[in-house]
């Protein structure tokens, strides 16, 4: 019986990992292309949740999940064009400071617009409750989440690896100078990547709102986990991030099974161990210009 319980935690951990992934992927994407660690990523996640509440109140949950990432993605264009673009080739400390400041401004702006008190956010009633498959208990809503994460992840992978767009982006990651020599302007690609990144973060916010709390600091909270996942996976590696997200979810589940009080510490211990053994992260690629 003990084994089944443990297995249940592992499976639940995989589901949980799925939704860390939604945030970590965008973060990793923006870093690998622009060389910028976007500390404001969590702010787009929070905005996604707040915008989806506003849209959901008027048009319903389904519309909110689609419209909110689109609106926040549009904001991403301004973010890239006006701000991020200036820092691609600057000292990384500058982009860190700028995105960190933006995260604070965004959090306070949310506080001013919607107040510090958390907003009630509920899921459509048909998603409530759980399914038991064999001995395992699944929340219906989380299974739905997992399906969406899977679709988003596949779409991103296909976009990056099977299209002309993806080829330019991947070439730009390794050798921006060569891409320039070939007469391709990377700037529109950068804008597109940033938009994709922040839109997936906003999608995360819209989807997680109903199971956690929609409050101004939600972005800061999730950023820590997302950043840990990206570091464990290896900055810039697609599959590394996928693997790390699942690993963090599973390790947290197993830790809580045996020692609940240590649950939150487990991912930091994992990060520490991984960095000791593989300083570049699990599947971190060697990117010449970052070494």
């Amino acid at each position, binding site marked *: 019986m003990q084994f089944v*319980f443990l297995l249940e935690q592992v499976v639940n951990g995989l589901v949980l990992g799925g939704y860390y992934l939604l945030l970590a992927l965008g973060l990793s994407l923006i*870093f690998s292309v622009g060389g910028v660690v976007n500390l404001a990523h969590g702010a787009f996640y929070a905005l996604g949740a707040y915008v989806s509440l506003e849209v959901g109140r008027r048009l319903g949950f389904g519309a909110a999940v689609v419209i909110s990432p689109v609106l926040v993605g549009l904001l991403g264009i301004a973010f890239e064009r006006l701000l991020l673009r200036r820092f691609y080739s600057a000292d990384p400390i500058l982009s*860190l400071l700028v995105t960190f400041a933006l995260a604070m401004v965004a959090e306070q702006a949310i506080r001013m617009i919607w107040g510090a008190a*958390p907003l*009630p956010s*509920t899921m459509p009633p048909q998603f*409530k409750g759980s399914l038991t498959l064999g001995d395992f208990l699944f929340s219906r809503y989380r299974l739905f989440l997992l399906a969406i994460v899977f679709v988003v992840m596949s779409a991103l992978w296909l976009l990056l690896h099977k299209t002309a767009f993806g080829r330019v982006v991947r070439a*730009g990651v390794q050798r921006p100078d060569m891409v320039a020599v070939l007469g391709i302007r990377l700037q529109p690609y950068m804008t597109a990547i940033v938009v994709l990144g922040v839109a997936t973060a906003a999608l995360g916010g819209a989807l997680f709102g109903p*199971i956690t709390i929609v409050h101004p600091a939600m972005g800061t909270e999730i950023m820590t986990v997302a950043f840990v996942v990206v570091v464990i996976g290896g900055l810039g590696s697609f599959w590394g991030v996928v693997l790390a997200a699942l690993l963090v979810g599973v390790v947290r589940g197993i830790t809580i099974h045996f020692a609940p009080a240590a649950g939150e510490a487990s991912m930091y211990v994992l990060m520490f161990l991984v960095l000791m053994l593989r300083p570049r992260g699990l599947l971190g690629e060697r990117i010449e210009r970052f*070494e």
Partner: protein
Amino acid sequence: MQTKPGQRSRRRALRGTAAIVGACALGAPRLLFAQTEKIRIGHLTPLTGFLGALGEYAVMGIKMAAEEINAAGGVMGRQLDVMSEDSVNPQVASTKAQRMIERDGVAVLMGEINSASALTISQVAARNRKLFMSIGARSDALRGKDCNRFTFHVDIPVTVMVNAAGQALVREGLVKGKKIYSLTADYLFGHDLSKAAKKFFAANGGEQIGDELVATDVTDFSPYLLKIRQARPDLVATNLAGNQVTNFVKQYAEFGLPFAVAGFNLNTADAWAAGEGNLGGIWPTVWHHELPTPGSKAFVAAFTKKYGKPPENHAWIEYVSLKMMAQAMSETRSTDTDKLIAYFESEAQFDILKTRKAYFRSWDHQLMQEAYPFTVKPKGQARDKWDFLKFGDAVPGASQPLELLAPTRAESACKM
């Protein structure tokens, strides 16, 4: 996309990120301007973190009280100047308290919701021989073994919360002979709550089959929910705090587990954030916005008019606390620490907008007042998003002494 070699490296990026995330933990002080003749009151409360939502209500409450007092001519003809700051965490709270005393020259310190921060502020107050009115912190230890002559406690201690909700649970038949599983917030307040809850269950024939500690920043409870399902308890009794309670309640509803839920700590703001349809069970509270006393009705009406939403219990408690402080200063015609302590210790009566008046017990400085259990209205009966909570009668009952549910002198470790 031209890069200069060595200008940006993964290592530097990581190091910079770590530095910035670390700097996050230290709050930024606010600029404040005031005239010297005003009576300055240092007000610390968490405005960020897992208790931040409650802190916002706290600031609204104390601000409204200050405006009313000042509009009526102030205290001894002097205006009150309440400087509210984010207490962030116990270390920052203690630093800011010290600074408020030394540099800003505050007459008294007030505030706090986080029990661990209240403890460090109370130590600063004792060291500097200044009065600290600890308003929203509920740990038993604060008024027990950690009590001191300079600190007064307004909110109900955890023993009262456990007794208030516990009696209702016993009446529902959810304690005697039942298996009880608990989740406990992993900090001073949670530990205290868990201790009081275990004592209550043991005394009333309940069997505690599990009690797990949960870090305060946990937002995903699914692994804990699986553990609860595996344990198959009759009752899930939570000793959680702040955002934890809301997250737990929402995810418990999401998974749809069949076991009864109750808890010994739920502020109305946390309940409102959970939303109708997610919340169930029996909980305690120190005050609620539907209390039918003339004082509470007037307060709720004024607050709703000013802020566009009904007051939460932390707004109420800060409001009445500043009024009590103003009463003490007016009566003693002084802001002198010893005179104020003597006034509060005289067990002077205060109107705190409840049916019965309240007073600070002289030997542990705990305010004696009524509490209320609450549950949730049947589906479809709520008028609006604020209205789905159903509040019970005051405990102790009208004919019982106010001290009935509080720790007795024999049980308390307080020695001043």
